[in-house]
C-alpha cells in the first residue's frame, strides 16, 4: 500500500509519512483505523524498524495519527494537516509552471478541468 523509492532523494521516513498521508486523504484509512506495527511494515518494505518508528512519531507529532500504549497507532481525527501539505505541493508545482511561462488563466483553466474530471469520475462510480 505504501511505495518507497529506495533510490529517491527524500528521506525514507518522509516517504512513509507521505504514503500514509495519501492513504488517509484518499479515504483508504479512516479515523481510528489501526496502522500496521513498525515490525510488520519494516519487514514488508525491507526497512529498518527504527526508520518506521521515526515516521510514526513524526505523524503523531503532526496530529495525523495517535498511539495507544501496548496497542499501536491509529488514524486520528483529521484537522486538515494533510490537505495543507497537499496544497504546499500544489504551490510548488504552480510556481514552477509560472516560471516556465504558463499564464494564470491557463493554470485556472487546468484546475477547472481536473475538478470536472474528478467529479464526473465520482459520479460514474456511484
Amino acid at each position: 500500500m505504501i511505495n518507497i523509492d529506495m533510490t529517491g532523494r527524500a528521506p525514507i521516513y518522509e516517504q512513509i509519512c507521505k504514503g500514509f498521508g495519501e492513504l488517509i486523504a484518499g479515504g483508504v484509512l479512516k479515523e481510528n483505523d489501526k496502522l500496521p506495527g513498525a515490525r510488520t511494515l519494516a519487514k514488508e518494505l525491507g526497512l529498518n524498524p527504527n526508520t518506521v518508528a521515526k515516521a510514526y512519531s513524526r505523524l503523531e507529532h503532526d496530529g495525523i495519527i495517535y498511539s495507544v500504549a501496548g496497542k499501536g497507532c491509529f488514524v486520528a481525527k483529521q484537522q486538515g494537516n494533510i490537505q495543507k501539505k497537499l496544497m504546499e505541493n500544489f504551490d510548488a508545482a504552480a510556481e514552477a509552471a509560472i516560471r516556465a511561462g504558463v499564464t494564470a488563466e491557463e493554470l485556472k483553466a487546468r484546475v477547472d478541468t481536473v475538478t470536472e474530471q474528478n467529479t464526473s469520475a465520482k459520479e460514474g462510480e456511484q
Partner: protein
Amino acid sequence: MIEIKDVTMTFEKNKGEKENFIALDHVSLSIPDGCIYGFLGSNGAGKSTLMRLLSGVYPVKSGSITIDGESVFDNAHAKGNMFFVNDETVQYSSFTLEDLKKYYSGYYPEFSAEVFDKLIGKLGLPPKKRMSQFSKGMKRQAVVAAALSCRTKYIMLDEAFDGLDPAMRKIIKTMIVDEMMDRNATLIVSSHNVAEINELCDRAMLLHEGHLLFADEIDEIKSGFCKIQIALKDSVITKEQAAAQGIEVMQCSTLGSVAQLIVKGNSQDVIEKLSKLQPVLLEAVPLTLEEIFIYELEARGYGADILKEDK
C-alpha cells in the same frame, strides 16, 4: 554500546615494500545499542580490518575498542556477545550444517539449536550436505543463519548481501528485523551497495584510506549535503562567487545558463545565502547517499582521474 577510540592499525611492510601499511588512521566511532550501523567505504578503505578488530581477530595496538566497557581481544566473555560473519566462507568447506550447528553451540552460550533448525528450514538448506558443495549464496545464507542462532547482542556482517539474490536479501532482512525487535540486537553491516545500506541502516559511516570521513544518523548525513540549481540574471555563477557567500562547493557544472552545485550544508541555509545574489532560479534537492559517497571520495581524488580521462 561499542566504543572505538582513536584506533590506528598498521600492518608491517612486506619484503620489497618501503613503508608499513596504515589500514586505519586514528578512527573514533561509537555504535549505540539497537541500531543497524552501515560501514561504507572505498575498496581497501579498512572496513574489514575494523570488523576484525571489533571481533577480536586482531589485537588493538593503538587506541582502544570496548564492547559494553570490556575490551574484546582474548576476552571470551566479550567475544560471546559478538558474532562476526566474515566475507570469506572457505573455512567452513568441510562442514555440513549439522557440523556447523555443533561447532557454534560449543562456542556461544546462548546458541539455540531450535532457532538454527527453524532458519535452515525456512531457507531450505540441506543439513547433511558438505558446505563445499553449496553455491556462494547458500554458504552466505548458512552463515547468516548460524549468526542469528548464536543470539549474540552484536552481529557483524561483512559484505552482508554479497552473493544473495533479491528474494533472499529480503528474507535475510526480515530475519534481521525480527532479531532487532525481539532481542534489541545491534547489527553492523558493510556493503558496497549504498542503496541497500540506505534502506536497512539508521546510522552509517564512511571510511576512505583508513580515515573516517563521517559517521552519523543517515538522515543527518543527508541533510548535510545538497544539490543546487542556480541561474543568475545575466551571468553564470562561478565556484568563487558561491564560495564568497560562505558556501562550501564540492563540485560545479553548468548547463546553458544554469549551474549545478554540489554543496556541503543544510539546504535551507544554502538557499538563504545564495538568494543574496538575487538569482532568477534557485532550487535545492537533497543528495542520495550514493551521490554523497561518490562526491566525498571524488573530492579526495578517488576515481577522479579515471573519470576525467573519459571526458
